[in-house]
């Protein structure tokens, strides 16, 4: 194996991210009309409580069976259980800081040590003023598996609810507070 190279450092997407990163179908993890689909919406605010209007959220998740159509899923890559499922979503915030992703709930996942991960999405947050992406996870309310989820268990109980989406009219709401009181838990991966 060759010698380790240094990684290229991250830099901010800056305020003009929309030029390069806007996809017309970005928010659609699953196509419109998919059975069981819902909107995951949320507002991103900064340390002063102001809306973050120049950010972008990306999501990645398993399909409803808890599978990934990816060669590194050791259970074997498998076409998704839902037609048109991309697993990936990308949504910019609007002029009031809201993003919206159209998706389905992922299945639970096995872990290497015999645990079960509760259904979750992982999110990357990019934006002006963010020199590197922020990584967080979205869990769903009322899932029995949340109580034993190996990631949630490691999070300070006082802050755990920042990772839980709330029911909303057409799906779920997951707000992201970048800084300060009720700051969202962000992860180092």
């Amino acid at each position, binding site marked *: *194996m*060759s*010698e380790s*190279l*240094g*990684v*290229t*450092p*991250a*830099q*901010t997407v800056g305020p*003009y*991210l*929309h*030029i*390069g*990163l806007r996809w017309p179908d970005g928010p659609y993890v699953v196509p419109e009309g998919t059975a069981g689909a819902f909107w995951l919406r949320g507002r991103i605010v*900064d*340390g*002063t409580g*102001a809306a973050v209007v120049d950010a972008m959220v*990306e999501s*990645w*998740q*398993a399909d409803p069976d808890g599978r*990934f159509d*990816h*060669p*590194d*899923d*050791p*259970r074997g890559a498998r076409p998704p259980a839902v037609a048109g499922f*991309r697993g*990936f979503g990308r949504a910019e915030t609007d002029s009031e800081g809201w993003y919206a992703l159209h998706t389905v709930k992922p299945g639970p*996942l*096995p*872990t*290497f040590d015999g645990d079960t*991960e509760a259904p*979750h999405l*992982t999110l*990357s947050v*990019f*934006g*002006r*003023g*963010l*020199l*590197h*992406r922020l990584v967080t996870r979205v869990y769903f309310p009322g899932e029995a598996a949340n109580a034993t989820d190996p*990631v949630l268990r490691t*999070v300070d109980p006082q802050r755990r609810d920042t990772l839980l989406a709330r029911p909303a009219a057409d799906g779920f709401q997951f707000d992201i507070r*970048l*800084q300060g009181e009720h*700051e969202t*838990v*962000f*992860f*180092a*991966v």
Partner: protein
Amino acid sequence: MSQDAERKLILPSYRRDDVDAHPPLLSPGYRSTVTRAPQQPLTYLPQRLTEVTGPLLGEGRLGELDHDLTRQHDGEPLGQRIIVHGRVLDGDGRAVPHTLVEIWQANAAGRYRHTADTWPAPLDPNFTGVGRALTDAEGRYRFVTVQPGAYPWRNHDNAWRPAHIHFSLFGRAFTQRLVTQMYFPGDPLFSQDPIFNSVRDERARQRMVARYDHAATRPEWALAYEFDIVLRGREATVFEDEDEDDDE
């Protein structure tokens, strides 16, 4: 648990970045970080199924001329025509093949085609400033574009961004996702730019600077720059026998 079942749950693992590899989220010289950087330390996330997989986005996302920013309109954009090429590698120098590379940039006058960019430099009707490409089997990509201009940005007194091209990379796993900026060698604006200098380590900073590549120029047509991008590598121990069958 049977031996077979155990093997099925073995996951690849990606090296964690060194502390100095990326800029600190709070870099007060770049003013916007002051209200946007989290104050709590990041929580350690073990790499599990969601983190070691990721979107493998393919050809369906690319138009025929997405790699050539000089041929996306009726006429050619103004400015110095340049070729920007390089490889996407992992930390062990292995190619990252068939991965999506997205770029965006200002035009030759330093103006972005964006409603939020209103400084008095001209837009170019023949330049949008967005490009996409997939790396080939050896991890190579190639764009044709024009040299972006520098522009003022009000972060501090008489602040100017050095010329740069934004790069967005997926790699093959969520852990490898990276957005960075490519800079041009010898730019006199480096010394006053808090975004470039947010990367504390000098050697790491230089990894964001392209190399002028005379061998890749095209005579009577375009100058060239080479910019290799290094994403996180995998831990060596996990993959004794995987190289044989993970190429596709």
